[in-house]
């Protein structure tokens, strides 16, 4: 009794091909939509509070455009695409090289942000509690940096598996799903960069 299963009349569906979207991709797109909503709230807060700090320091006085980090992060999106392509063509070594380069670029970005924050905190006296600008700046840029950090954890995991020789062509789709997240993190940086370093100054 408990093991029965009644299947409705499978009246054959002649020649109908049954294709469904990949669940990994669907889930990653959903995650990206959800994350976008979080970033939207932080970006809106940032824009709303531009110029509303009652005391200094102001963005004009302390912020410098992080050219190096931005170049690193944005180019990593291109490099990870090269890695995806290499894996599609079953060139595992090339894939590993591009993947490692992506990871390095991500790490450079984080290190660059770290130096920027160090300068801001210890030389220019801006902390998260200094003023409204500090609060919104560190939380928005920090939120993005946290996402880069999560991306780096993912990238590192894949790199370790690559070095152990476990990554093969059939993992292409999973790798592409992870790459989607990395592209998203890059795209968010374009928004954050525009809002914080161009509009906000």
């Amino acid at each position, binding site marked *: 009794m408990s093991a029965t*299963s009644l299947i409705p009349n499978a009246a054959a569906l002649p020649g109908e091909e049954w294709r*469904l979207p990949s669940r990994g991709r669907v889930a990653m797109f959903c995650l990206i939509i959800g994350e976008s909503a979080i970033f939207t*709230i932080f970006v809106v807060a940032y824009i709303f509070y531009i110029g509303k700090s009652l005391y200094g320091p102001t963005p004009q006085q302390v912020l410098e455009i992080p050219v190096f980090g931005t170049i690193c992060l944005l180019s990593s999106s291109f490099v990870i695409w090269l890695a995806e392509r290499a894996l599609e063509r079953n060139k595992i070594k090339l894939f590993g090289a591009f993947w490692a380069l992506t990871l390095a670029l991500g790490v450079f970005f984080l290190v660059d942000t770290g130096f920027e924050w160090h300068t801001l905190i210890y030389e220019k006296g801006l902390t998260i509690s200094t003023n409204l600008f500090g*609060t919104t700046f560190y939380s928005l840029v920090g939120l993005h940096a946290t996402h880069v950090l999560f991306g780096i954890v993912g990238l590192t995991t894949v790199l370790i598996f690559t070095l152990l020789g476990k990554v093969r062509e059939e993992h292409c789709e999973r790798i592409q799903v992870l790459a989607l997240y990395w592209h998203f993190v890059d795209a968010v940086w374009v928004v954050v960069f525009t809002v914080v370093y161009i509009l906000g100054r």
Partner: protein
Amino acid sequence: MADQTFPIGGTLDLTPPRVAKETFLEWIHGWVTTVDHKRLGILYLLYAILFLLVGGAEAIAIRIQLAFPDNHFLAPDTFNRLFTMHGTTMVFLMGMPFLFGFANYIVPLQIGARDMAFPRLNALSFWLTAFGGAMLYYSFIGGSGLYGVGNAPDVTWWAYAPLTSKAFSPGHGVDYWALSLIIAGIGTLGGAINIIATVLSMRCKGMTLLRMPLFAWLMLVVSGLLLITITPLTAAQVMLTIDRYLGGHFFDTQAGGSAVVWMHFFWIFGHPEVYVLVFPAFAIANEVIPVFSRKPIFGYPAMVAASVGIAFISLGVWAHHMFTVGMTSVDNTFFVLSTELVGVPTGIKIFNWLATMWGGKIRFKVPMLFLTGFLFQFLIAGLTGIILSIAPFDWQLHNSYFVIAHFHYMLVGSIVFAIFGGFYYWYPKFSGRMMSEKLGKWHFWLMLIGFHVTFDTMHFVGLMGMPRSIYTYEADRGWAHLNTIISIGGFVQAIAVLIFGFNLVWSYYKGKEAGNDPWDAWTLEWSTSSPPPVYNYAVEPEVRSRRPLWDLKHPEDPDWNYE
């Protein structure tokens, strides 16, 4: 039963069941580590019932306090904590877990899938939600740190700034509120992602989007809505936590921050959240009403479009909670109009349900009784909503008991009624046994009477000017008798809910054997055994219409000739 009527060779797993009975520890271990969507669904539902009882007990304490003028049953600060916890519990720990419980159990069965798309994510989501709830309630003992008396959050469930700042809310009550909801929110996000991936990527052969049961459609829409509504709350609570722990100034008016920004962020979450809670009710109505009216749902494409429409419009109505804040008249007008616009797709839904019942051979079993109550109360809740959306009227009645009555008509009269209906409808599938009809009828009628005694009367005290969130009132206000009546109604509802709880337990042991398809229903979940085997379907089903079981039972007149 049905399996003798339709024997299909080769689809049955005839492996004999395990002989050795599992020990108690094995049983516990099995439930804690489970990744089966049906077990997780049941865990979600039990969790929701637990918090329905807890939140209900809080409501009863509140009603005892308010039953008489100048009452001292509760201290003022306890009262504040109780209504904060009541609201937070009912929204986050009762409403949403019911949603996920039903979605988890029913959706994979309805779309002919083996499990959810990500079973382990599913388990993670449940346990995050569960620990979020546990953490919130831990605040009762740990809210002031580990020393001193505990304090639960006492800032209302919408937690307006600047009351939530360190200066006005010392201790850790607010921190528990924010952190536990961030954790539960991550669980919710995981659950929503899982449902979307399941519905889009796990459908059995032939189950196109427009052949999918409306229940699955509604769960898809509500999950999509959750993706973009629960996350703003998480963002806002992260900001609040930054303010409280790191000395940030997001909502600190002394440093240029704005308290109104919190209101916007909260209600950008908070209003769509109401639709998040009501969509499962729609989903249940879409299954129960056609089956008990013996007619296919009227206007299937219109129902799908209306659901998507409601989700879309609900994202642009949040500031109708803020008419008294002092927005510009342009803003006010926009939010009045957008709020009234919600009435159009919801109206379509109500008319379609009525049209489904019209001319049908209605069987008033307990599920249908509850869903009929749902229809009536949902209509009234919608109408008072339209009334409240008119800004000048809202200026009069903002934060009065009229508003409380309005949204309890939605939350209790519509959502909880539909959830009860859903329980009576799917309980045979969950457990293999029917719930007692007799107890069910007692439950329904007491619930209906108690509900109307409480919440109809609440409209009047609201119109007489009684504000919400007050812990007592003077005798000469003229609200005393009505409040006593409201409280009596609350007790009647409590008795009804206890009967329901008793019925759940009693029927599990003593209920009538249900068989696979006790209601003669049409969706795939009724084709498998009750309760379904772990693998759901031994052979992947194929469907050719919206009512696969109708096609199976009536091969001479299948639905696909008409779709």
